[in-house]
């Protein structure tokens, strides 16, 4: 447990010590601020559901920038050798890095809590969907980060990790379009597409099927990452 905490702390500190963390944070706030303003001022919608859905698009671009460095940078610089010759298991290293990124993402989300608070000041919206929506956003981002960690462990190049992750995330996102319909294959695509599970949360619905989907998706990705780490050490 201790190595996981130590590694997560180091990753978190590293985000705040490097420009990349601040850039991600700034770009994120600029976009989500605009989305919030646009929903109210242009569309005149006094709820967060649309905001949640819009924000997912910007996350496709930004979350890979958080995960690209996790393993790729350490492999490029060779620091991975010091880390992996410490008494740390592969699983602990993967979890530490994943949680470091997840906590940074949670901080990003926390900074947007001002939007629902503003809404409650302006009107009397139903608060339930806010809580479930944020839970959904955390899980949703968590799956994106898990994809990112996996791809970062498969290359030494941060650029390749970023591009590869954005591509995979876009693909997962597009599945939800293709899967609009009632045929069995459309239902299947709908199920395996990551964003389609978010809408229930945004509506205020916490369905165990969605929870199960996200948690098993993250678990599967992290399991593959542990295997990938063992593989790159082997060569």
């Amino acid at each position, binding site marked *: 447990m201790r190595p996981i905490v*130590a590694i997560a702390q180091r990753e978190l500190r590293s985000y705040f*010590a490097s420009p990349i963390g601040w850039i991600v944070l700034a770009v994120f706030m600029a976009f989500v601020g605009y989305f919030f303003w646009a929903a109210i001022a242009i569309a005149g919608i006094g709820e967060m559901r649309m905001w949640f859905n819009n924000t997912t698009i910007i996350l496709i671009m930004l979350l890979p920038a958080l995960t690209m460095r996790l393993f790729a940078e350490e*492999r490029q610089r060779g620091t991975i050798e*010091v880390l992996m*010759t410490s*008494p*740390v298991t592969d699983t602990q290293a993967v979890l530490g890095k994943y949680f470091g990124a997840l906590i940074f993402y949670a901080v990003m989300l926390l900074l947007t809590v001002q939007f629902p608070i503003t809404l409650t000041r302006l009107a009397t919206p139903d608060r339930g969907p806010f809580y479930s929506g944020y839970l959904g956003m955390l899980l949703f981002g968590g799956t994106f980060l898990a994809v990112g960690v996996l791809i970062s462990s498969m290359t030494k190049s941060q650029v390749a990790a970023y591009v590869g992750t954005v591509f995979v995330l876009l693909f997962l996102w597009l599945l939800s379009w293709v899967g609009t319909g009632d045929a069995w294959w459309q239902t299947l695509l709908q199920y395996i597409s990551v964003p389609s599970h978010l809408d229930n949360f945004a509506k205020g619905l916490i369905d165990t099927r969605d929870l199960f989907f996200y948690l098993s998706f993250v678990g599967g990705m992290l399991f593959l990452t542990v295997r990938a780490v063992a593989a790159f050490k*082997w060569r």
Partner: protein
Amino acid sequence: MVEVKGLTKYYGEYAAIQDVSFKTETGEILGFLGPNAAGKTTTMRIITGFMPPTSGTALVSGIDVTEDSVAARRKLGYMPEQVPLYDDMTVREYLSFCAQVRGVPRKDIADRVTQVMKDVDVTEYADTLILKLSKGYRQRVGIAQALVHEPEVLILDEPTVGLDPRQIVEVRQLIRSLRGDRTVILSTHILPEVQMVCDRVVIINEGRVVAMDAPEALMERLQSKQQVRLQVRGPENEVLAALRQLPGVTRVTQDEGAEGVRTFTVEAARDRDIREEAAALIVRKGWGLRELSAVAMSLEDVYIKLTETEPGADKQTDRKEGEQ
């Protein structure tokens, strides 16, 4: 204590190391010497549990690295080649992180970090970003990192590469000061380094151990004749002829030199020291003896001899060692 038994590692078809075995005594500094791509880094990566061997085992303080890698890693500190460090942390932050990951009790971390910074003399840079350190200080932090949890075994891969001469001397002194109750293994391709720093040397070439002994003993073993170098002012041909007449002399060669002053190298059998006789001869003839010295066979000669005799049938020297 480190014991390596029959270690073999294949990268696909290519054997990086084959049947490497050696054992270190506690408290000694073992030099791991070989040309580039000889398999030094591969061997170290296996001992440190970074990669599994294809076959064979390595024991660190009696713990098999292939069976209980994490427990073995607790006993060792490792500084990889090129000293990779997290540049975005300060020295103190970095060493604290390493202490934490290596399982130093929380309450002891601050003290251990302070102590190890003192040991390697980086205290004045404690709160400097690692990014801003000179190469010599990076190297010190790299060694501090490997020492912070007080390991029984310390493994250093090419610890002096890329340093300037003064820094090299300092780092070597630092390494020598570390011997005592812990075992140090260091790899190098620099011969004098082994002679200066190590108690014992393992010479590896093309993935195989070719010799293992104390540096002096290795030289002794391969040295079958003695060489004496003389600088003499006098008529060249006469000097040459006279030296050849000395008992026991097998060969005399002559180097280029200033006019009238020549340097001669005299080879003779080992059983008698010809230095005094040579000096007496030259003085008797009335020539000027400028310099006289015994030429010890250097580790370099030993090394070249050993690595030359190795058949280089399927050389793959262009493959970079430790390529991932």
